[in-house]
């Protein structure tokens, strides 16, 4: 199997032959995909809000779309970070805001009402995906998973603390880096 990184290894260094199972779970990978989706959508909304407002019959609300773009970018960065759970929940909240905005545009006078309806269905689907992913990520990375044990019997001192307290005194003559 070709791996680009093998090209930069020195002669005696091991090189990848085949890749095995990863520490990333399916939920982690989905979160990563949703994070990049946020970044892409946020970039579009921030840089080309007219395209969005035109498609949805929302002309004049470019400022709102731009602010949603900033929100998407922040949610994307958070979702791609180690704190992906917080990022995913922020996406769920953002989905709610998107749906409320779209619902307000779902009026008979809007010539693009059909597109708005399609967008609502899409956002609904993504909301479900965000919610399920947030739940899965939260469950998989929950510190409460597994057995709970205390280690009150693990002193590390086979002879007991009293027997060894101060055993290393006097200290070695050279206790700090030589200069």
């Amino acid at each position: 199997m070709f791996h680009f990184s093998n090209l930069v290894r020195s002669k005696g260094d091991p090189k990848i032959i085949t890749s095995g199972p990863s520490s990333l779970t399916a939920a982690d990978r989905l979160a990563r995909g949703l994070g990049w989706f946020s970044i892409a959508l946020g970039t579009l909304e921030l840089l080309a809000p007219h395209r969005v407002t035109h498609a949805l019959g929302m002309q004049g609300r470019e400022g709102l779309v731009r602010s949603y773009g900033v929100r998407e970018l922040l949610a994307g960065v958070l979702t791609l970070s180690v704190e992906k759970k917080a990022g995913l929940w922020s996406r769920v909240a953002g989905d709610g805001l998107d749906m409320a905005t779209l619902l307000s545009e779902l009026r008979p006078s809007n010539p693009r009402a059909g597109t708005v309806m399609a967008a609502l269905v899409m956002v609904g689907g993504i909301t479900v995906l965000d919610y399920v992913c947030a739940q899965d990520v939260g469950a998989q990375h929950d510190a409460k998973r597994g057995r709970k044990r205390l280690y009150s019997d693990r002193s590390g001192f086979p002879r007991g603390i009293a027997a060894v307290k101060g055993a290393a005194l006097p200290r070695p003559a050279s206790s700090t880096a030589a200069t």
Partner: protein
Amino acid sequence: MKALVWHGKEDIRCDAVSDPEIEHERDAIIKVTSCAICGSDLHLFHNYIPAMMPGDIMGHETMGEVVEVGSGVNGKLKKGDRIVVPFTIICGECEQCRRGNFSVCETTNRNKHLAEKVFGHTTAGLFGYTHLTGGYPGGQAEYLRVPFADATHIKVPDGMSDEQALFLSDILPTGWQAAVQCDIEPNDTVAVWGCGPVGQMAIRSAILLGAKQVIAIDRIPERLAMAEAGGAITINFDRESVVERLNELTDNKGPEKCIDATGMESHVSAAQPDTLLDRAKQMFLLENDRPHVLREMIYVCRPGGILSIPGVYSGFSDKIPMGALMNKGLTIRTGQTHVNRWTDELVQRIEDGQLDPSFVITHSVALERGPDMYRVFRDKQDSCVKVVMKP
């Protein structure tokens, strides 16, 4: 062979890789019998340490049996020897090595030019770490090539188990050096932030070095219980104010000696608002580290005291209270561990039964479970404190 390979943020895989080969006459190859996941591996896992590359083999706490020796090892090792591999690769000959400053060996970093650009000067080559420190393949693998093997090894005394010897590679001398750097005196209070494996070793070291009281600070109950078992008074920072409690335990004078065994990834919580700001800045690449512990140590340490920092910091840290640091006349001591400087003394203490570092092991698994165990260790699931893997 099998090895745990870094592929990117939070993506460690158990890959099939080619076997390592002798590259230089001073190299040796060991068959790994035990290796461990270190807290600093999590900084790599989170991609906080710059200059990692996909395909890098993880691991710098390793021991095993010598299976091949280069011609320049000059009889210092032979096939069949059991050795622990210090995480710092040392030549044993340069000016720094001769002074015992092994972690800043001038010879072994094969990417010196990078280190000189970033740090100003080169530091030692490290196993399974960033390419700034040589990008040497690590020991979470079935086999490991040990460069400069004639100097970079610790022979395991007969009768000492893997579990007792393995941590001579890093966390035991790191905790020990952290405590020794404090110049502990019999009336001193030593406060240790972070009860992970290095914090646990620092607590035991401070006890051996005769501190009047050792105070351990964390939020994970099982880690606090382990710290208490080692002789520490504990502070759960989720439940009580660290500053108030430390002052209460020291007649409002503060601890004379403070050890930061947490480093760049301080716990983020609304109760510590500076950590929220640090985390946000870290996310947007405006700051590398979250130095909450460092700030708290400077604030609470007794004037004239010593701050010892074994915790890893990666780059730039903001809002360090330099005014308090300077006016209180605090001394900071830090650095990667000069492992071999402490080896003889620590081996002796283990053999004498003063200390058994295996107390910290909570999980012992096959290498193939490594990717899962990175998650378990990071998420502090299953009461995980230290993972040892058997290839």
